[in-house]
């Protein structure tokens, strides 16, 4: 055992000696107590109630919008021919893209043995789950008759018909529902040992029973851990191709169509990179204030901030490459419709959106090359915010500018989102934050058992 120097920080190599993954002074006991006390003992702060109240109020706006939408029909939104996919479908893509960073952090970085992921994976997975919940609502309510949504699933019915499996929209149903299910299972499995920790720490009977039921009798047996680790690893291995497939299939919703601006082979990798880009922006947007507010600087260190900023920069460059290639394909195709589509994006009625998108998604992240900017949390937060807006604009440009002027000029039209489009969007943000506030209050937002594994005292000498 390392009794001589118990405070040796965990390091992965010489390049990381500047910023450790975890505060060197932490122990099994302090990690356990600090994280579980956020849930168990800490008095709920006024700021939490304040944030929750605002989110919950905005969530009501969503319910109001949905109620109105179900009574009136989707004409309430600004969608109409030719732009039948408006802000609602772009919000679907935006939300589901945000979710992808959570899976990337929890699954892909686990397989790559990036141990810094440990302190942010639980939170990022929760973010995934809540973002997918928002995303799922849009296509369902866009159906027009959402109460018939079960028609999407292949079930034996009196009409004697089956869904059309050659359509990417059917693939989407399976991809998104599988993604939501697997993310939920992955998240829950990760929580089981922490539920046991909370069960053993909780003072009040109701919480002992609640966490006890959720822990399912977990007792940390070596045999259990062995199978548990195997299950977790296999789930990570399954979630990795899954997350890539989900956004690939989302991009097929567009790319399989024949609309200029959608029908492009670059869509799957470009969408996946964009999803990770937007997702990391959201993780930064949320963790920067959160770690400050809950005093978690020892767990979520500057190393995490740097790494996430670097992932954002790298995926931002891939996305930038995607934009350049889109323009290049448009020109090089020699096809007049493709050429017009690119010209229309840059100079048409929505050109402002296009140039704002370039500014947000290509120009803004370039500041992340500088270590000074990466170390400045305010700057990092602002860049993440700009990127989130940029990724929203990207989907707006893809969905709207491609549809509003396609082959036949007599069918051209304009699209304006109505107040109900915005109220739905703001409402889903409210719902997202409502779930997030409940999560940080009632569940450990950092994986306690995984944090123990990266402590220096966790190492067993042979």
């Amino acid at each position, binding site marked *: 055992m390392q009794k001589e120097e118990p405070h040796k920080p965990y390091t992965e190599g010489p390049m990381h000696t500047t910023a450790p993954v975890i505060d060197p002074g932490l122990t099994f006991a302090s990690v356990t107590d600090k994280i579980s006390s956020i849930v168990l003992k800490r008095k709920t702060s006024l700021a939490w109630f304040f944030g929750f109240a605002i989110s919950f109020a905005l969530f009501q706006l969503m319910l109001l919008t949905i109620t109105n939408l179900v009574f009136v029909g989707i004409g309430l939104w600004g969608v109409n021919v030719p732009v039948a996919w408006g802000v609602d479908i772009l919000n679907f893509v935006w939300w589901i893209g945000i979710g992808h960073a959570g899976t990337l952090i929890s699954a892909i970085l686990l397989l790559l043995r990036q141990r810094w992921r440990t302190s942010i994976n639980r939170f990022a997975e929760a973010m995934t789950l809540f973002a997918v919940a928002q995303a799922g609502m849009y296509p369902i309510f866009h159906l027009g008759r959402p109460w018939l949504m079960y028609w999407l699933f292949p079930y034996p019915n009196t009409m004697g*018909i089956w869904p059309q499996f050659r359509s990417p929209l059917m693939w989407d149903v399976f991809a998104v529902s599988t993604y939501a299910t697997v993310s939920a299972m992955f998240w829950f499995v990760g929580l089981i040992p922490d539920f046991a920790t909370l069960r053993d720490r909780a003072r009040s009977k109701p919480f002992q029973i609640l966490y006890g039921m959720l822990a399912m009798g977990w007792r940390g047996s070596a045999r259990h851990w062995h199978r548990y680790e195997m299950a977790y690893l296999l789930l990570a291995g399954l979630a990795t191709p899954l997350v890539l497939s989900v956004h690939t299939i989302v991009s097929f919703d567009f790319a399989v169509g024949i609309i200029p601006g959608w029908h492009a082979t670059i869509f799957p990798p470009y969408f996946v990179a964009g999803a990770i880009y937007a997702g990391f922006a959201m993780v930064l947007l949320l963790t920067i204030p959160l770690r400050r507010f809950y005093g978690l600087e020892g767990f979520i260190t500057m190393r995490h901030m740097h790494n996430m900023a670097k992932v954002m920069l790298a995926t931002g460059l891939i996305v930038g490459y995607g934009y350049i290639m889109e323009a290049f394909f448009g020109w090089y195709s020699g096809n007049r419709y493709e050429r017009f589509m690119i010209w229309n994006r840059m100079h048409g009625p929505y050109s402002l959106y296009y140039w704002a998108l370039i500014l947000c998604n290509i120009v803004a992240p370039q500041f992340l090359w500088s270590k000074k900017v990466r170390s400045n949390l305010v700057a990092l937060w602002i860049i993440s915010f700009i990127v989130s807006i940029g990724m929203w604009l990207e989907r707006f440009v893809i969905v709207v500018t491609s549809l509003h002027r396609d082959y036949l000029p007599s069918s051209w039209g304009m699209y304006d989102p109505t107040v109900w489009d915005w109220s739905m969007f703001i409402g889903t943000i409210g719902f997202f934050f409502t779930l997030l506030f409940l999560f940080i209050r009632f569940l450990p937002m950092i994986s306690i058992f995984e944090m123990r594994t990266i402590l220096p005292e966790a190492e067993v000498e042979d």
Partner: protein
Amino acid sequence: MEQGQHVHPAGAIAHRRHAPPLYGVMAEFESPGDLVAAARKVYSLGYRRINGYSPYPIEELSEAIGFTHTRLPLIVFIGGLLGGLAGFFMQYWMEVIDYPLNVGGKPLNSWPAFIPITFEMTVLAAAFSAVLGMLVLNRLPQPYHPVFNVPNFAMATRDRFFLAVEANDPKFNHEEVVNLLKSLDALEVNDVEI
């Protein structure tokens, strides 16, 4: 348990004549290193029905107690395979046999278009197999277990490490096991009652 009682009539039984039935003996350790060293020692002395308890997964520990193989990967593989086959043939049966429909002149068995859903079904079934397989093999949920009777066992989810020698081990002798565990740097040694 029966066997143990017959082999050591003077040990386990005589020593604890009026006590409740025994699940085993549990030793508490301060560090993962102490636990792993103790587990190796106990295993090397021929005890096989032993188990370690720790707040986080310790690879060396499951090796030390001789538990290195799990059927879980096989279960997940079979689950994924069945899910994929079910996913593909569901589409095949619906689109080719039960409800053939000409869509844009594509062949009825347009298998490339069936791949995305086949893949998703593979992952879904494999993930369910992984989670449910892990829970079933671990016999969870299990609300009651004798080890929870050990006074300090709540610390097994904080910073304490435990080693149990179960009473149904063929070599189990209460006195011998207690003395052995006490000699292994254990903070405390307790009987685990059922």
